[in-house]
């Protein structure tokens, strides 16, 4: 098995509306190492959510994956059956959504909704199963049971065990008195508690990958900080891989190891968190940095917004999607989208300024060449 848990190759996802094809994700590729947190940042409509919903194949109709491969742990998720996909959702790939206020079903208890996912996916471990098998009196039957277990077949977790597990994870995410609170309904939980419950739900089947789609956007700032701390703790303790989608660069800096910057359905720049924050090489990434307020005491400085507005994905501009707003735009930028130029072995930027024939512009260094992938 490779060191990458997830490999997205040339993914295109479009929405087929009556106005025409809206290309939400336009040919993106990336690899995700096991055990890290990848941040995907971009403004509304940049394709960050759709690209991650594509991974678990939950893009709302009329959206469809048009092209590409999504290799998760050796399986191409675009090719498997719906049934197989349902087995992976929740158990191997879990998702945390944006708005905790509406993401829990109001008519069922937290317990019901947590146990449901656990009972669907979790089987008891081999050790537990063998322990149980030893208690079987009839030797003939015991032998058979052990053989089954050796072949990797163990029974599904029962309701009581699922409840224990649910309570364990609620405790882990910091719900006080989980034994009693678990019996409550979502409306009896505050926003922060609901998001914790949803995080517990995502963790409960020990997934290999968690996709968090703006999990803090709908929360107020103090609760945001708590949820971020929780995610950091989880990453440390459980060693899960996390994809964290946000439009908030501050959150990215706080949490992530690697960053992908998306714009107009394409990847503009990717690199380690240090690359993106200290050595941004794409005009769009630079623009993002200039539009964040920086707290320097006593210093008055105007924010520099990126002029213009995001591209219309129904009729995306030819060439680089950022060209209408880019102050460095050259002729080639209007004709052809830039490939990802490798800047270092961690960083690459989809900008023609990296090409060896491009004029020198202050603050941009020339790349070592085009990335092969």
């Amino acid at each position: 098995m490779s060191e990458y848990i997830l490999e997205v190759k040339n993914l295109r996802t479009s929405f087929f509306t009556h106005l025409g094809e809206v290309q939400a994700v336009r040919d993106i590729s990336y690899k995700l190492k096991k055990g890290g947190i990848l941040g995907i940042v971009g403004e509304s409509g940049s394709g960050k959510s759709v690209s991650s919903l594509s991974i678990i194949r939950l893009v709302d109709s009329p959206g469809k994956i048009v092209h590409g491969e999504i290799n998760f742990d050796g399986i191409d998720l675009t090719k498997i059956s719906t049934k197989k996909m349902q087995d992976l959702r929740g158990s191997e790939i879990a998702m945390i959504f944006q708005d905790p206020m509406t993401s829990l079903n109001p008519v069922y208890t937290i317990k019901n909704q947590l146990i449901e996912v656990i009972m669907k996916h979790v089987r008891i471990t081999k050790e537990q199963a063998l322990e149980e098998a030893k208690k079987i009196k009839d030797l003939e039957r015991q032998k058979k049971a052990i053989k089954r277990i050796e072949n990797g077949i163990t029974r599904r977790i029962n309701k009581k065990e699922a409840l224990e597990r649910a309570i364990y994870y609620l405790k882990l995410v910091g719900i006080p008195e989980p034994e009693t609170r678990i019996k409550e309904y979502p409306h009896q939980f505050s926003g922060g508690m609901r998001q914790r419950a949803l995080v517990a739900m995502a963790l409960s089947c020990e997934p290999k990958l968690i996709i968090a789609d703006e999990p803090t956007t709908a929360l107020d700032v103090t609760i945001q900080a708590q949820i971020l701390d929780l995610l950091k703790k989880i990453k440390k303790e459980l060693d899960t891989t996390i994809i964290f989608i946000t439009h908030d660069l501050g959150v990215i800096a706080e949490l992530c190891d690697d960053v992908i910057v998306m714009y107009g359905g394409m990847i503009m720049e990717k690199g380690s968190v240090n690359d993106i924050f200290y050595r941004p090489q794409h005009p769009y990434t630079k623009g993002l940095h200039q539009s964040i307020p920086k707290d320097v005491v006593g210093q008055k400085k105007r924010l520099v917004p990126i002029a213009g507005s995001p591209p219309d994905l129904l009729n995306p501009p030819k060439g680089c999607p950022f060209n209408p707003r880019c102050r460095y735009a050259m002729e080639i930028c209007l004709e052809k989208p830039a490939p990802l130029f490798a800047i270092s072995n961690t960083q690459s930027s989809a900008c023609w300024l990296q090409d060896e024939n491009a004029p020198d512009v202050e603050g941009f260094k020339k790349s070592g060449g085009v990335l092969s992938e």
Partner: protein
Amino acid sequence: MYNYVIKKILFSFLTLLIVVTLVFFMLRAIPGGPFTREKPLPEATRERLEEAYGLNEPLFKQYLIYMGNLFTGDLGPSFRKPAYSVNELLATGIPQTAKVGLIAVILIVILGIPLGVISALKANTSIDYGVMILATVGITVPSFVIGSLFILLAQNVAWIPVGGLTKPISYLGPVVALGGYSLAFVARLTRSSMLEVLRQDYIRTARAKGLSEYKVIFKHALKNSLIPVVTYIGPMIAALMTGSFVVERIFVINGIGKYFTESIGARDYTLVIGVTLFYAIFYIIMVLLVDVAYSLIDPRIRLSK
């Protein structure tokens, strides 16, 4: 919840008292009386009749006598059907009406809700369009048209009687005419409610948990989408079980819907109050049941005050 129900029941007695009182005095305020005829009765006959039924007493005394009898469960004699008491008329009329109403209610629930769900799941396909066209017809065509059409068609078919409730098949016409509108309405309501719920975030969460589509629809979506349907079904049951004058007239059913309208025209004071009282009691019960059903479906609604 029990406190709530008990409180509601106590309050409903007050409501019933007000209903009876209002109807009693309002009926007396309408010109004419039970013994007014196109060709007037001889003065002496009318006076004797009025004396026999106690209508010569002062109004307030009549009221007290009536209420006194009412508390013992006696709804008094019918003025226009002298052979029967109101209790007897209700006892024969209610079962006729209720049988037709109950069959209609059952059909609406077991057909209307599934049709709505199917329509929502197959939204914008030919199945959906088919169901919705039928539903629109059901809502727009009034019951007397459906009833008359049915009779027009059924009179050529020997084994379908066109009136009365003599055979099981004879329920078909009245049930369709009575329940057509509500069936169509429930189907439409369920469809739109289901479509609304399917767009909710918690449905996406359920899918992201890896639940089968069956579980997503029937566990997570259906319960939520039934909340508005229950609101409609409660009063609907009350309306259907208390019958429809039009349907009972067309299909010659001696139900209370027919009694009610006839009794008002005939100024049959006691029968009017009797039927009104039955309607009121039934409505109150249904509204109470809707409240209880609500709190069972939606935990956010708590029955306490």
